[in-house]
């Protein structure tokens, strides 16, 4: 009796907690509402299964608890019932998997009009690089990293000259413009994580990883590291600011380009050489 009642109470508590507790995801600030929708579908299907199974169990415990004289029913198996249950479960699983895979396809397909930007992680802070007027990022590599060139931008690549480098400071992005976020790490694994954007991806030294999103509201959003990266993991924070396009442009105009940094000297020389070419 107490056991059956407790099982019912667990169901009531769980459903009540889900519906009435104040703890829910942060208001979204990107186009990934699809992910939230898939998550809600999953909540409904799994929630229904949880309630049904535990309530049935509570009823069994109540109805078939031991009393003198009770004899259990002898029935080794029921192929028919098992096949029905397998089929229903498969259907429920498919109902979650199908939208999940469709949204994943969108998630990994970067639209053609996306601007490329770069986030570089190292123990324990974030740096950023945005393309300059040529609209494209110069190449980079670990071998070029030094005090003057903390992001390891290739000094011989002319596409890198006008890249905007934000070594310490917040990232700004314009509202409504899709961005492909290229992710690099110079030391260990990190993960660029802004809860409001829903998207995240690990940053792996030696590789460039990516995700894409479109900012859908202005504001300041905290950046956290979501992959354990040593003792400073919990304090590896920063901010991304989503601006109206005109505010973004004026912010961008105030930033330093790679050519303006000490390490950018080689690019300046290369560019001069190219211009003087007949």
């Amino acid at each position, binding site marked *: 009796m107490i056991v059956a009642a407790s099982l019912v109470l667990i169901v009531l508590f769980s459903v009540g907690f889900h519906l009435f507790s104040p703890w829910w995801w942060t208001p979204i600030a990107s186009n990934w509402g699809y992910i939230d929708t898939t998550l809600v579908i999953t909540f409904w299907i799994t929630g229904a299964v949880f309630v049904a199974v535990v309530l049935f169990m509570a009823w069994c415990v109540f109805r078939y608890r031991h009393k003198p004289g009770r004899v259990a029913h002898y029935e080794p198996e029921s192929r028919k019932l*098992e096949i029905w249950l397998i089929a229903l479960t498969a259907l429920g699983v498919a109902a979650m998997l199908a939208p999940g895979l469709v949204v994943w396809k969108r998630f990994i397909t970067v639209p053609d009009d996306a601007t490329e930007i770069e986030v570089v992680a190292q123990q324990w802070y974030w740096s950023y690089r945005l393309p300059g007027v040529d609209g494209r990022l110069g190449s980079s590599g670990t071998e070029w990293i030094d005090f003057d060139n903390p992001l390891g931008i290739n000094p011989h690549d002319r596409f890198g000259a006008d890249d905007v480098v934000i070594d310490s400071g917040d990232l700004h992005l314009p509202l409504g413009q899709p961005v492909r976020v290229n992710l690099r790490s110079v030391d260990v694994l990190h993960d660029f994580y802004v809860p409001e954007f829903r998207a995240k991806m690990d940053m792996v030294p030696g590789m460039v990883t990516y995700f894409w999103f479109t900012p859908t509201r202005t504001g300041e959003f905290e950046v956290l590291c979501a992959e354990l990266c040593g003792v400073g993991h919990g304090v590896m924070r920063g901010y991304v600011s989503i601006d109206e396009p005109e505010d973004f442009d004026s912010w961008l105009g105030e930033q330093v380009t790679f050519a303006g940094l000490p390490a950018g000297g080689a690019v300046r020389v290369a560019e001069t050489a190219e211009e003087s070419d007949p």
Partner: protein
Amino acid sequence: MSSVSEDPDSGIPPAEVPDLPPPHAHGWWSRWVFSQDAKYIALQYSGTAIAIGMVALVLSWLIRMQLGFPGVFDFISAEAYYQFITMHGMIMVVYLLTAIFLGGFGNYLIPLMVGARDMVFPFVNMLSFWMYFAAVVVLVASFFAPGGPTGAGWTLYPPQAILSGTPGGTGWGIVLMLVSLILFIIGFTMGGLNYAVTVLQARTRGMTLMRMPLTVWGIFTATVMALLAFPALFVAAVMMLFDRLLGTSFFMPALVEMGQQLSYGGGSPIVFQHLFWFFGHPEVYIVALPAFGIVSDLIAVHARKNIFGYRMMVWAIVIIGALSFIVWAHHMYVSGMHPYFGFFFATTTLIIAVPTALKVYNWILTLWRGDIHLTLPMLFALGFIVTFLNGGLTGLFLGNVVVDVPLSDTMFVVAHFHMVMGVAPIMVIFGAIYHWFPLISGRMLSHRLGLIHFWVTFIGAYAIFFPMHYVGLVGVPRRYPDISASFVPDSVATLNAFISVAALTVGAAQILFLFNFAWSLRYGRKAEPNPWRAASLEWQTPEMPPRHGNWGKELPVVYRWAYEYSVPGASRDFIAQDDPGHPASWSHVP
């Protein structure tokens, strides 16, 4: 085989090999230390596992003290916090759960349940335990090494695991951790081969594979999986040890640490993750399948009903075991691996939900129209179903690649895996201890203390891990000693404090359990033979507790499956497997 069956109608095959006595102890050392009796080795395994598990329990208190009351306990620095979570995770998953299910329950129950006198290789079995013991000693030594144990997280991801930004990364911590894992795997391989060969070769006459209790099926399948999965961890550990000590670059790309170019180059951190999870995902089922098997038997015995759909249950165990080898990269959806892998691994992962769900249905259908005795093993079995169901369902969020993206690396993941492979299997371990304690000790555990233990543990664990999912949903990342952030409302801190109080309470209840265990061992009520009226073979030994060699003069002969409960027309509500007196009532089973 030329010999003829003694009774051609019984269908019992003749013995294929002579019944040899297991090795006898000749002195104090070979009896009490280097024992070759599987039952004694089981107790050595379990005792060591529970002792090191207590360390993990204390670490969990420290973790929860920090998370619930950040800044209050000065001695918990970020370094210490990462060391605590790393050691807590590694101990619980490998040194407690794997060791107690396979080394503990496997050693005790396999020979008794299949009707063998002992494991087939008793000497190797003894060595297996002592390798495990050495692994635990090395693990404990890392707590006292200069710089302390590793704080790389239990996943030990390189490059950070062997660099200076991580506690123990350039000191002794990570080296001792890897050496300990290598020793563990060597020890386990010796034990695992033994368990598998015993199940395949040492079953008594009449004990066909499809008559074995699900406990044996679960442990057997888990053992075979472990034999296939642990080598991946073994090579990963050896390669990382080389990277750390010899300067190789298996997992290390060219990188710049704190402004310094290091001499590594050309390796891949993602290769380590593949190796780790090729072990790590089957590992989840290595822990879960023995729990599935044991809980099936607890439910059947205490509901006085055969396990519903036995054959489907066996196939579900085998299919889950096989599928679990092609789902590993669902731990790596946001690792930076090729995104197309997401389609494949999400599909395989969600397919595994089908046989798993079937097992849950069949446990409940066993309760349906049963005669449910609400004994302690049954209560823990019910607790298992609730927590396993909950944790299994949240797995459908994390397995579905795109839903995992916002949730991965948050407290949602922590809540999920604690529910499904922490709380749920531990519920089964407790249920199993309450169930088999009389067989092992000849006494009953105190029912009253057990009830307090059950209710505090079950309700408390649910109160810890159910709300924790919502902390993750808010966006709080895991492995943060202090979770405050601009998007986290203050109320989450209150919830965290509540979770910590619940965790400390549940922890205290485990002390009560240990007290009950120690007290009942001496003063517990004497158990009558086969106190639960179980049909399976381990309760049919001539003496209880069973002596060395298990079966007295004659090995038992098995006439039926292990689930002959409440058979219509039978004189009592169970028919033991070795009872020749009744016809085999269920014609589906050979």
